[in-house]
């Protein structure tokens, strides 16, 4: 029943938005559903959601304008993808995250807002170690944020996290602990690489394979492609 309700909401939003209009949803009609303790519902969400409702409208208009200006197909596709993903946040309170495994395999998942990346990895059976279970007492959930733009959106690490990062293998400029990255709307589309478990990690990296999703969401080239990723030894 919940699914059918959500689908109806989804179709309504899609219909409204495709007409270039802004679908106003009254709070009273769409109450919060508590499927889990994470934000899984429609519009009782975070204040950011409202901004996103607005941004959907903006993007849509931007899209039309760009089309008429004859902008590049790539730019249009990027905006189209961002539009698609933002709807995900609005309706389902989830963001898209892509993990890149040690073997270079890309694993796209949906993460509820408020969930840590470590927990999300475990829920999706992605091999990310978490020896201390998220209590800032180890460095085994070390991940690399593939895109500097996303890395900069994260809150600065606290001393305790930096202390643990000191001990992480293959530390880079965009390294963070997976248990400290918490899903929020502005992280939608983030790509996180799980470092290969090698003590002599080389700057060449664990086989990063550029993909449609990762490339399109980055405004700047990922640091790894530049070959500017520095090794922080210990």
């Amino acid at each position: 029943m919940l699914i059918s309700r959500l689908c109806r909401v989804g179709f309504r939003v899609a219909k409204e938005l495709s007409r270039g209009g802004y679908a106003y949803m009254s709070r009273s009609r769409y109450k919060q559903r508590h499927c889990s303790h994470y934000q899984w519902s429609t519009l009782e969400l975070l204040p950011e959601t409202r901004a996103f409702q607005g941004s959907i409208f903006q993007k849509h208009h931007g899209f039309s304008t760009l089309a008429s200006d004859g902008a590049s197909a790539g730019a249009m596709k990027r905006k189209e993808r961002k539009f698609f993903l933002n709807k995900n946040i609005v309706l389902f309170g989830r963001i898209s995250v892509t993990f890149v495994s040690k073997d270079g395999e890309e694993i796209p998942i949906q993460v509820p807002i408020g969930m840590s990346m470590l927990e999300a990895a475990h829920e999706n059976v992605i091999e990310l170690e978490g020896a201390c279970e998220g209590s800032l007492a180890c460095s085994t959930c070390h991940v690399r944020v593939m895109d500097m733009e996303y890395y900069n959106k994260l809150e600065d690490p606290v001393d305790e996290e930096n202390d643990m990062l000191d001990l992480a293998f293959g530390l880079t400029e965009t390294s963070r602990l997976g248990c400290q990255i918490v899903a929020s709307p502005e992280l939608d589309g983030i790509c996180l690489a799980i470092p290969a478990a090698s003590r002599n990690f080389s700057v060449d990296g664990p086989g990063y394979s550029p993909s449609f999703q990762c490339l399109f969401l980055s405004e700047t080239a990922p640091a790894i492609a530049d070959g500017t990723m520095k090794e922080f030894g210990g």
Partner: protein
Amino acid sequence: MAIFRARRVLWRSFSTISSHPLRVCIVGSGPAGFYTAEKILKTHQGSQVDIIDRLPTPYGLVRSGVAPDHPETKNVINQFSRVAQNGRCSFFGNVALGSSISLVELQELYHVVVLAYGAESDRVVGIPGEDLKGVHSAREFVWWYNGHPDGRNLDPDLKNTDTAVILGQGNVALDVARILLRPTSELAITDIASHALTALEQSSIRKVYLVGRRGPVQAACTAKELREVLGIKDLYIHIKETDLKITPADEEEMKNSRIHRRIYELLSKAATAGPSQPSSGQRELHFVFFRQPDRFLESYDKKGYVSGVHLEKTGLKGIGSGKQIAIGTGQFENLSCGIVLKSIGYKSVPVDDLPFDNQKGVVPNVKGRVLSDNSGDPTSFENGLYVCGWLKRGPTGIIATNLYCAEETVASLSEDLELGVLASTTRLPKLGRDGLLQILDNRNVRVVPFSAWERIDKEEKRLGSLRNKPREKLTSREELLKVAGSE
């Protein structure tokens, strides 16, 4: 993604050998042992893995090394428990390599033996007076406060003196300093052994010196531990500002190492942060740099007891590749104390029929494959014998280091299986678990399986709850075996 997963599963089942399961015995149930077991179980779907440990309790240093006031570091035990509860894995406690079962016998019972029994001895300083009473290794002291059955009789005298000297500035040294200086009310709600808590409550030690041969840039501790010891409530910290002067060589070292850079920054801040003198009755922690021990001084009043350390000032000398070592300058001074704790490194213990490199204190190996001897001949391997953890790499690193160590060892094992290097042994079935238990039964060895450990675990937690502690450790073999055996 589902298709990729399915492919991976198929590959794994094809990677196991023939119709009988691969039988593996891992000696040692600390992080090295458990990470190895986990990796083997995952990579070789048909494998049967047995983990033996000479103690009735599993988890190695996670239980007996990690400090009582670091409970989060012990969370990894949950992951190891899940490995032990895997249907293809068995834990057998109270089984000692050497006395309960020999290495040769294990190699007959199992296709593969992985040695992960760590380092249960100490490096010696090698100076006069080292066997004076009151000079202990930090390893023994840690065993003592962590309730290790072999540490309960240490009985260190904390009442005859107000000063303790710790040689070394690594994390173990800092742990020991912290346990000596922390208010005992804070220790009372941890899983510290109760005999240690009682002794610490009656302790007269108020000053602790952490003595290092080199400077603050070379200090071996890590930021979390340093930050913690510097943050102890109402503790006076003393660091000589002149020790903080850095040379171009020091700067080069720090440039290449984030850890050392941050440690130096923490020490610099601590040197100038607090008051210049301790207030009356305040506990003190002194960081002493550029001093190496020359000999231990014997007390005049109490013959056979230590009364201080004769220290030689040192200077640093570069030996290439950015490393600097300590060189004596011929200037000496004395540091009085009533107890010395040597925290200069652990050392592994050799067993019969096992190649051993006495100089490095490890089993000679290449990526975890045990070499037949120390000659360095890389083509002569012991068939089916592997090594992991401190026994392989030497006693350094953190719990997570064993994760990567295990990956490497298991990769070597998997490669050997694939290439048929182990074909002569894997071609035939082995008795494994059943054979082992039969032999142990014949020898009246009281094996402690995982379910019995769970009884011990439950009882310790129950006793702990009576005293507002997470657990009250049972510290004698007899008590442990009694609870393990009971129903």
